[in-house]
């Protein structure tokens, strides 16, 4: 065997990077259990959000109190029965039992009509209608009241009331999400959540594991450069993240009919940018922590929590206290959700979305610079 070391040239960056990235892919593929969870969890979350966690309300139990049931009042009942959101309870003629029924939770909304309603209408009077909603959950109560009022108004118009005077009638329409489907609103947020998990959390854990086991030192004393270590770590997870985005979007479209009004390419590019921000954050977290557990907790607290709580995913940014609104500017998911909702629901394009995209790009630049510097072997 040749005993003297052969002449060496600096190893090609791409070969070196390729060898390292190949290893990352093998890690991912070898741990079948984790991979399966990472692939299926997003779908499970989508189904959970889509079917169970809803802010729109269906099957509102409505009670019509009609002291003098006639054709007019049954027209109202028909409208409730066919609206798709209401479950019509047998009409009563007295208001007496209403309080008890609501207390027991058997009635969500009651519409109480005046006695002599039909004759009042005929003689040109203005009969009154009382809408009572269960307000123990204010959000739900308000929504139910709004639904019920809308049905009552339609009914009122069909009766051709008040023909004599000219009135200005407001017509309300919710643009972009006319049926107020909450799943439409959740899907962009859910994508942000999944991407955060796959990018920040998984890279932080994977890098911290190398530090914990001592393999990281071996990488640092090798010709691998910090940027190669980072790119090699990050790209396989980026691939996984994109696979997740695509499956969630397809499932959302097939199961829940979630629209995609803008450019899918723009959405995927934005998701890539957002993923890179998350990946850089994950690398940075791993660089400043020394164990897998610490990295995991830091990733959960530092990325998942703000991305869920301060991004507008669950609580609208506009309804946060002012200081929190300021903090939310630093949360990457806030910008991504704005972009994703814009593309999916409003069909917005680059001309409208460049500000949040620029902010994400700036975040990526800062985080990546920090990550590379913190991964440099000379920092200790």
């Amino acid at each position, binding site marked *: *065997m040749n*005993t*003297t*070391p*052969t*002449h*060496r*040239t*600096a*190893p*090609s960056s791409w*070969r*070196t990077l*390729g*060898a*390292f990235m*190949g*290893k990352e892919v*093998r*890690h991912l593929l*070898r*741990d079948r259990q984790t991979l399966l969870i990472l692939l299926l969890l997003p779908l499970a979350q989508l189904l959970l959000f889509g079917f169970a966690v809803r802010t729109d309300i269906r099957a509102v139990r409505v009670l019509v109190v009609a002291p003098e049931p006639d054709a007019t009042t049954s027209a109202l009942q028909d409208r409730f029965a066919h609206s798709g959101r209401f479950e019509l309870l047998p009409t009563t003629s007295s208001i007496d039992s209403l309080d008890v029924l609501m207390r027991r939770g058997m009635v969500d909304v009651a519409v109480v009509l005046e006695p002599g309603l039909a004759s009042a209408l005929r003689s040109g009077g203005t009969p009154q209608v009382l809408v009572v909603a269960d307000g123990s959950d204010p959000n739900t109560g308000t929504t139910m009241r709004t639904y019920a009022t809308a049905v009552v108004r339609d009914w009122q118009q069909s009766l051709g009331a008040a023909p004599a005077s000219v009135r200005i009638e407001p017509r309300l329409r919710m643009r972009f999400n006319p049926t107020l489907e909450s799943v439409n609103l959740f899907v962009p947020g859910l994508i942000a959540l999944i991407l955060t998990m796959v990018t920040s959390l998984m890279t932080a854990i994977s890098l911290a594991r190398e530090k914990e*086991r*001592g*393999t990281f*030192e*071996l*990488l*640092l*004393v*090798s*010709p*691998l*450069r910090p940027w190669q270590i980072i790119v090699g770590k990050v790209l396989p997870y980026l691939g996984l993240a994109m696979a997740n985005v695509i499956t969630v979007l397809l499932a959302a479209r097939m199961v829940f009919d979630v629209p995609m009004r803008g450019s899918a390419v723009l959405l995927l590019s934005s998701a890539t940018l957002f993923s890179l921000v998350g990946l850089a954050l994950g690398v940075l977290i791993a660089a400043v922590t020394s164990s897998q557990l610490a990295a995991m907790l830091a990733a959960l607290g530092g990325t998942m929590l703000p991305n869920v709580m301060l991004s507008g995913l669950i609580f609208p940014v506009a309804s946060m206290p002012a200081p929190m609104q300021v903090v939310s500017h630093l949360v990457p998911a806030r910008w991504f959700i704005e972009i994703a909702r814009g593309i999916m629901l409003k069909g917005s394009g680059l001309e409208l979305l460049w500000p949040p995209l620029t902010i994400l790009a700036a975040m990526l630049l800062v985080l990546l610079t920090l990550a590379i510097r913190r991964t440099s*072997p*000379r920092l*200790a």
Partner: protein
Amino acid sequence: MNRSDAGSTGPAIVAHELTRRFGDFTAVDAISFTVQSGEVFGFLGANGAGKTTAIRMFTGLLAPTSGSASVAGFDVATESDRVRERIGYMSQRFSLYEDLTVRENIRLYGGIYGLDDATIRERSDVMLAELDFTPSVTSLVRSLPLGWKQKLAFSVALLHQPVVVFLDEPTGGVDPITRRQFWEMIYRAAARGTTVFVTTHYLDEAEYCDRLSIMVDGRLAALGTPAALKREYDVPSLDDVFVRLVRSPVADAG
């Protein structure tokens, strides 16, 4: 030894007043020594004497506070990229990837050091044959006994035929037979011209080194062949040399 590798015709390692401070604490205090090519150089010292800090400087993981060092002819502070291509490293923590197979680990390290597939295959065949490696190359490293893992880690560190290989307490926790085999591997590497820089706290192992240095409180307290050191301190074993150095206030004696 005639090497085609530019920069390695001189000594393998030169340390000159090499110093590293962490705040007020001086971990390595102005050490100077030279290691010749092909030498098996032992680096001894109690825990916390500064061995690991010194190795981290030689391997480019840590910048010197003052002084200088060169490895394979290149300065560790200013030419660390070139140093890194020419060294092998095996840390005290066993560091192959447990969830990859033997073959995958070999391919990974070969690839990181820029070897092409044919070279990797050729060298790993020779390497495994020399090791008498009986487990399958497609078995996960996790499933190997510790002795095999350690021997494999050392062979992998030599795969790119480094000028210098740094071994940081390579034989911790393995049985005496494996330790013996491990030292045979070290000699084989040295006979091929690779300089071996090895830290240990087994003093019987220190006897196997061509020369050894003993660090006490960050300083180089003694340096020489095992025989010379025993003569100098007029004691029958390296154990006695070590105990004497660690007990006496060498730091003041310089």
